[in-house]
């Protein structure tokens, strides 16, 4: 989807009462109606985009998962995600560890379900190797070091039911300094199913 097709609901970099630019922008794709949240500040860009559970089911069914396992993945609040070091050339590398990220939903604290969590589950369920490989590499890496300009793309899983809301605190390190960002009131995609357009019937 070309970026030009993305309609931003809330303007980028809205000014807060304190006069500082809000680093979080919320957008919605006009065709799919899927929402995305984007943090862009302090030399880091994090963008997470809703995935319908049916999208996720279709993706993993096509890669060798059975229906029960595809349903299980789809029910764990999956987002398409991109993390990028947007700092200038001299700013140095950014390291990120998803184990350090925290989410809160309905007063409860939680963590992302990272590759290592899923790897153990798929071994227990004896998922075919080709499916496991596709799953592993389709997730955002748990740990990564990003040079300026580097980015990773991949799914992130928040372990919440469809349509849940949560706040995300994410962290990274640059030049030995720990930094963090927060995106509030993120919504997992609801478990809806596309219906045929009656006009086409």
């Amino acid at each position, binding site marked *: 989807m070309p970026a030009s097709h*993305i309609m931003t609901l809330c303007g980028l970099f809205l000014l807060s009462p304190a006069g500082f630019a809000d680093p979080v922008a919320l957008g919605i794709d006009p065709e799919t109606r899927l929402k995305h949240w984007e943090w862009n500040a302090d030399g880091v*860009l994090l963008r997470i985009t809703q995935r319908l559970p049916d999208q996720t089911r*279709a*993706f993993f069914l096509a890669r060798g998962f059975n229906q029960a396992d595809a349903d299980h993945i789809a029910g764990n609040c999956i987002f398409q995600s991109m993390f990028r070091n947007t700092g200038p050339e001299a700013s140095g590398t950014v390291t990120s560890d998803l184990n350090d990220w925290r989410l809160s939903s309905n007063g409860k604290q939680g963590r992302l379900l990272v590759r290592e969590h899923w790897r153990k589950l798929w071994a227990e369920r004896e998922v075919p190797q080709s499916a496991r490989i596709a799953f592993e590499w389709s997730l955002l890496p748990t740990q990564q070091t990003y040079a300026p300009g580097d980015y*990773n793309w991949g799914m992130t899983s928040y372990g919440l039911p469809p349509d849940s809301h949560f706040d995300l605190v994410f962290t990274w390190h640059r030049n030995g300094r720990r930094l963090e960002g927060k995106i509030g009131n993120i919504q997992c995609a609801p478990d809806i199913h596309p219906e045929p357009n009656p006009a086409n019937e």
Partner: protein
Amino acid sequence: MNRLNLVPALLGFLALLASGSGSGAGPDVSGETLTALPDKPPAPEFTLPDIDGRTHRLSDYRGKVVVVNFWATWCPPCREEMPAMQRAWEQVRNDDIVFLGINVGETEDEIFAFTGDYRVDFPLLMDRDSAAIQDWPIRGLPTTYVVDGEGHLAYRAIGGRAWDRPEVLDQIRALR
């Protein structure tokens, strides 16, 4: 059209969504170059078949600069950068510079279908069991390394790049 006939259309719609095409996959990389690796570690060896059945060993290319791209057909930024990689290869193919695309975990049929949509003339190798990628310092797709003529990792790009950008090509050509 009855409801039953709409099922393939719906599945097609879901497949389009599932592919990630609706997610705004990659950022603007038009200004990015490659990250130099000062310690230049040795490139891990691999022996992999391409989609035509020919075997490729990295060491077969000793003396040449080799751009090794790890990718998958379902990875949107991998697909996004492939046309630029093809254009880059067309510009340097006669300069002792080799491009190898290593697909992670997929079949000949899946890769063949991809090449129906994306023209790729450099070798596409298959790492079906992901054994090769696990030997390399890689955590996400796409990741690309540029191997110098002595078999050392000289540059790295995590995420896609505009491979046909003159500044990027200059970095690669300078290794000859």
